[in-house]
């Protein structure tokens, strides 16, 4: 299993570096824009002037410091979706891409179980998205700190952990669904489209004032940076749902993959 993990990690390393690089740039841009949104900044007044529905959509939070509020907004708006998209793409390369390129034949001819193959690749998904989330958090905090801004840096870490859990859960469900889509390019279009769609849906529902319970089917509703920063901990329901979905989809993926018919 270790050999399988490292082989796949190596295969996905260039991709991870690109995604982490892009995410770090996004984190740095987010940090660089922070002064304009914090109290006294030029954008602060504009935000307050927005209708409440738009404020809700943008995530204008109450009860948080301006910097924490800004970061919470940006995590929901930009940073979470980047990690989720990467996780979905990685999940599709685990089986769908290998089947499409027929490299799965080489892999499955080796004396190792399909479960090992799948778990080693899921391990890479976990590690790579964790590295991405960690890099976003580290560079965001470092840049804010360098600008003399003080926020709940520990809380931002919890938020990014929440984002990682969301990415793993959505990656897991994409992995499970991709078992039935052997055409990799079709799978990419389909599942990235679904991820992006659910992201947009979350904002639309927020703007429409749909309650949290009403958004239970929206994956992005399970990342709530405002609540996390306000409480100083993750919401247990969010964590339980995301971990539960992740584990259930992984278990189902193993089961389906072990029975999957690999045609020529």
């Amino acid at each position, binding site marked *: 299993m270790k050999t399988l993990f490292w082989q796949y990690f190596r295969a996905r390393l260039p991709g991870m570096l690109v995604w982490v690089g892009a995410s770090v740039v996004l984190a740095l841009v987010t940090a660089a824009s922070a002064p304009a949104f914090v109290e006294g900044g030029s954008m602060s007044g504009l935000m307050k002037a927005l209708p409440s529905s738009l404020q809700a959509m943008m995530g204008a939070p109450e009860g948080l410091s301006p910097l924490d509020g800004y970061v919470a907004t940006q995590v929901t708006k930009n940073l979470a979706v980047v990690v989720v998209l990467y996780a979905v793409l990685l999940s599709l390369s685990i089986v769908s891409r290998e089947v499409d390129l027929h490299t799965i034949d080489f892999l499955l001819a080796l004396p190792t179980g399909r479960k090992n193959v799948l778990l080693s690749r899921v391990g890479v998904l976990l590690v790579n998205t964790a590295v991405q989330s960690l890099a976003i958090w580290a560079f965001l905090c470092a840049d804010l700190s360098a600008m003399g801004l003080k926020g709940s840096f520990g809380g931002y870490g919890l938020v990014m952990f929440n984002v990682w859990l969301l990415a793993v859960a959505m990656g897991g469900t994409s992995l499970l669904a991709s078992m039935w889509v052997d055409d990799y390019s079709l799978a990419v279009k389909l599942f990235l489209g679904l991820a992006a769609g659910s992201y947009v849906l979350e904002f639309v529902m927020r703007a429409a004032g749909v309650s949290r319970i009403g958004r239970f089917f929206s994956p992005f509703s399970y990342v709530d940076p405002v609540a996390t920063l306000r409480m100083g901990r993750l919401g247990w329901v969010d964590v339980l749902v995301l971990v539960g979905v992740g584990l259930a989809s992984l278990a189902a993926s193993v089961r389906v993959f072990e029975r999957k018919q*690999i*045609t020529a």
Partner: protein
Amino acid sequence: MVLAEPVDAGDRLSRLLLGGREKDFFLHPDVPKQARTERLEGFVVKLGSCEGFCQEIIQAPVVCCQEFIDGSGHVVHPLAIMSAHAAGGQVTAVGRIGPRIGISMRRQKLGEGGGAVSALEIRGLTRLYRNGRGIRDVDLSVAEGEVFGFLGPNGAGKTTLIRTVMGFLTPQAGTIRVLGVDALAHNREMRKRVGYLPSDPALYDFLTGLQTIEFSLRVRGLADRGRVAELARRLDVDLDKRLKTLSRGSRQKVALVAALAHDPDLLILDEPTTGLDPLVQETFAELVREERSRGKTVFMSSHVLSEVESLCDRVAIIRDGRIVAVDTVAGLKRRRVKYVRVEFAETAPDLSTLLGIRDYQVEGNRVQFTWAGGLDPLVQALSGNNLVDLTVSDPPLEEVFRAFYGGGEA
């Protein structure tokens, strides 16, 4: 193989067959006086010269018991063999021998009840796709040490069968035993001892050939890559280049090295020479022959008839997902069709209406055609027509193959 002089059983041979480990035995011609037919089942037999002990006059082994028994099921006395030569791995000519010709036998693993263990045993295997294509009720048995060809055009079911054996597809019915292991229940165990080369193999582009093979060996828990350099040298492939920079043929070679690197007991090759240039095809043929001489089993699908004819001990022909024939190449040729040329003293009579005639051509008083079936009806039809000359010859394998696909039952 022409057979003669059935004999009865002998203790020495029995001891050799049932006793020692897998190795070559050399028997002086006056030793194996007796042997029971069932005791020979699955053994690899070589003809050899006593002069210089194991200096064999035939390198290619005779593969199966049926090659070694006559029509009534009796074992042929080796002393009956006078001259023999290997042609594509088959003993094609035999006769009475002198005292200098001997025989060696390779003992193979014996299963329960003393019978030989087949390298591949398929029973009632069915794997159908939604469109109704696939394989139906396939029975096959490949003996250890045998090179077995699997012939059929595209879409006949060759790849489906191989992928089912490898565990990529689950059969709807049937059993598969590979090297004595239930391949459906213990597929992972089975794959330790199998080398597999898919048709049009796809490998990881970001790896070099060597990294690919090392990865394969590491997963198998093997550190020794002693064979790799030698195989790469013989196949003339640079293992240090990234696979994405290699041509299709070179990738095929890397995949072949990867399939052979762990010294598998059974090689399953799906159209192995596709994409290889003729020189490398020759090297491939040498490798297969060497594997066979080392007691390894090779199961290869192909639609290149000449390749199968030159390499394989036995051949199965698959048609529309069903096995329509399993025999030696020579056997297939013999039993199916023959080329016939007839010359008459006068104008040739019309034979075209005879059942069994195909490709009928007349040139004056000469007639040539392909004949399917036994020769008795033909000889009867020809008699009384002032026959001047009659030539009956085996057709090339292509014609045999065409006969199986041209219509009718095998």
